[in-house]
């Protein structure tokens, strides 16, 4: 694929970081379920958290395409680090950048973009997954404060987050219209850390339950207007889909690279695996599908930078990259044979990490409904 000089140079820089710094940590992070505080800090030093945020807000002043490339490259080595990166940037930095007022940006966007604070996004609830209109967490305005009550689950980085962008409704019976977005800071009384999930993959990332019991936040922590919550998180999710797509893509690319390395160095009956046509066929299929997924995601990124509608393209990118990501990681294991199932080789980690991509930020089924709505025109 042809990229501009600027993006090519950026990719090179990220590739180096990914290969030399992230990759050596990936296995341990997975085995020990360790949150990568060191990598989180390094990525902040590299200005990766505000790639599409202007410099005056602590960002790098680049674009969404650079961001997609960065997520892809980091995830190529480690899905756990990738999901932290994607969630922090797309789900905390982005909504505050897009919907926050000036003082909110000063207060939260700058430290988030610089990596001084960790961000998180609280949308999903025990009874509201794909259907966000079923949000039950309430926010009642009493005087100058909102009082939040409810439980959020499967929140990436929840336990380590300093700043949480949260959706809550003033009345669950209002559906979408009742939902608003708020910022809650760590340590606010009534904000309780619930259980931490023990997951199949992405074990180096933190997935938490967050509980709010009469949690009082100042009125000025409302993002946008009351009732804007649905609009804000739909926008957030369009961008989020680019990042999850890039994450799925990166994992797929990583799996392909390990598979290529393996088949070029192992033989059967004195013939290199890479010389066998059935294996070539598989490699060609995955390689093509990864390239297609990359084009879909980069195009969605370009649309976002141009300020054009991208709902369909972002959903396509996320759906497709996660679909072919599962195929790529699965095939990578197959090409390794029994060795692929052992922890000696990284490909079994890749498939466990990749599975979340078909589920998080809208399941594939939801993506397909979004796409269908766009092409059916209603």
């Amino acid at each position, binding site marked *: 694929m042809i990229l501009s000089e600027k993006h090519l140079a950026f990719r090179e820089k990220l590739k180096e970081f990914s290969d030399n710094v992230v990759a050596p940590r990936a296995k341990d992070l997975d085995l020990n379920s360790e949150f990568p505080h060191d990598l989180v800090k390094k990525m902040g030093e590299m200005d990766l958290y505000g790639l599409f945020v202007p410099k005056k807000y602590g960002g790098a002043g680049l674009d969404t395409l650079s961001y997609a490339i960065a997520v892809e490259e980091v995830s190529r080595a480690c899905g756990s680090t990738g999901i932290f990166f994607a969630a922090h940037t797309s789900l905390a930095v982005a909504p505050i950048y897009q919907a926050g007022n000036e003082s909110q940006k000063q207060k939260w966007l700058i430290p988030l973009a610089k990596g001084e604070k960790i961000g998180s996004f609280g949308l999903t609830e025990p009874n509201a997954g794909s259907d966000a209109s079923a949000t039950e967490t309430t926010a009642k305005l009493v005087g100058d404060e909102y009082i939040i009550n409810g439980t959020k689950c499967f929140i990436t980085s929840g336990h380590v987050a300093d700043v949480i962008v949260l959706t809550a409704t003033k009345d669950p019976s209002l559906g979408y219209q009742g939902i608003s977005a708020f910022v809650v800071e760590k340590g606010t009384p009534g904000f309780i850390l619930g259980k931490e999930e023990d997951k199949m993959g992405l074990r180096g990332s933190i997935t938490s339950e967050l509980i709010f019991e009469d949690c009082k936040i100042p009125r000025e922590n409302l993002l946008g207007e009351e009732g804007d919550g649905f609009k804000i998180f739909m926008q957030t999710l369009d961008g989020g889909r680019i990042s999850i797509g890039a994450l799925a893509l990166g994992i797929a690319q990583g799996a392909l690279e390990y598979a290529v390395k393996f088949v070029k160095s192992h033989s059967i009956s004195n013939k290199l695996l890479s010389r066998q046509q059935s294996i070539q066929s598989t490699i060609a299929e995955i390689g093509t599908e990864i390239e297609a997924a990359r084009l879909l995601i980069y195009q969605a990124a370009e649309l976002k930078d141009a300020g054009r*509608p991208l709902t369909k393209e972002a959903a396509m990118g996320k759906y497709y990259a996660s679909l072919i990501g599962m195929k790529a990681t699965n095939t990578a294991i197959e090409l390794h044979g029994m060795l692929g199932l052992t922890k000696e080789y990284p490909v079994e980690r890749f498939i466990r990490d990749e599975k979340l991509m078909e589920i998080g930020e809208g399941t594939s089924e939801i993506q397909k409904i979004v796409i269908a709505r*766009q092409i059916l*025109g*209603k």
Partner: protein
Amino acid sequence: MDIIVCIKRVPQTAEADVTIDSSGKDIEKDRLSFDMNESDSYALEEAVLIKEKFGGTITVISLGHQDTEDTLRIALAKGADNAIRIKAEDFDELDGYKTAQILKSAISDLNYDLIFTGCIATDDAYSQVGVTLAELLDIPHASLVINIDTSEKRAHVHRELEGGLTEHLDISLPALCTIQTGINEPRYASLIAIRRAAKKEIKVIGKEEIEKENLLLNTQIEELFIPPKTKEIEFLTGSPAESASKLAKIFKEKGLI
């Protein structure tokens, strides 16, 4: 023979599902595709045919937003020599009268023997701009024109009337005709013409260049809505024999046979 053709970029709504936007006064245009208004493309073709016969220049002019330049470029590729866009973003609400006033002001400095417009825009269907423009310019006009035969000073035109009637008119130039579809067969732009047109400059003028007096808005849209369904379409399914017998039964019930 110098000809001005007024064109409009309109959404293609024939096969689209049209929905009303949040203002309640316009349709949602995000997912629609846009093209030159149908009768305008016949007006342009008629101008090109006359130019091919008598020489001269064609200027296309459109009151529209930035993307209107795509449509103007297609007109250049099909044979127009100059293109002017009047920035619609400079004028709030528009109706037929105000549009005609703006066009009048924009073309008052241009030379022309003929002005062509389409006879009706497929989006608002007012059929006002052409004839109002002629009145404002104080030149003769003919609407719903289906044939034109021009000499240097006069034009012999046929107008399409209701009930299959055709009216023959002899008008002096300069004059304005609103062109009916079917008068000719609009051509497609060749690739070479497209490539040349893509490089041509489109003159853009704004409110500074337009006389501000008389820019009145005489009509305002109060509400746009999709009429409630009053009747249901019934699809007859099954084999040809089954659906035919269902149809016959309906005809019988309604007393048609």
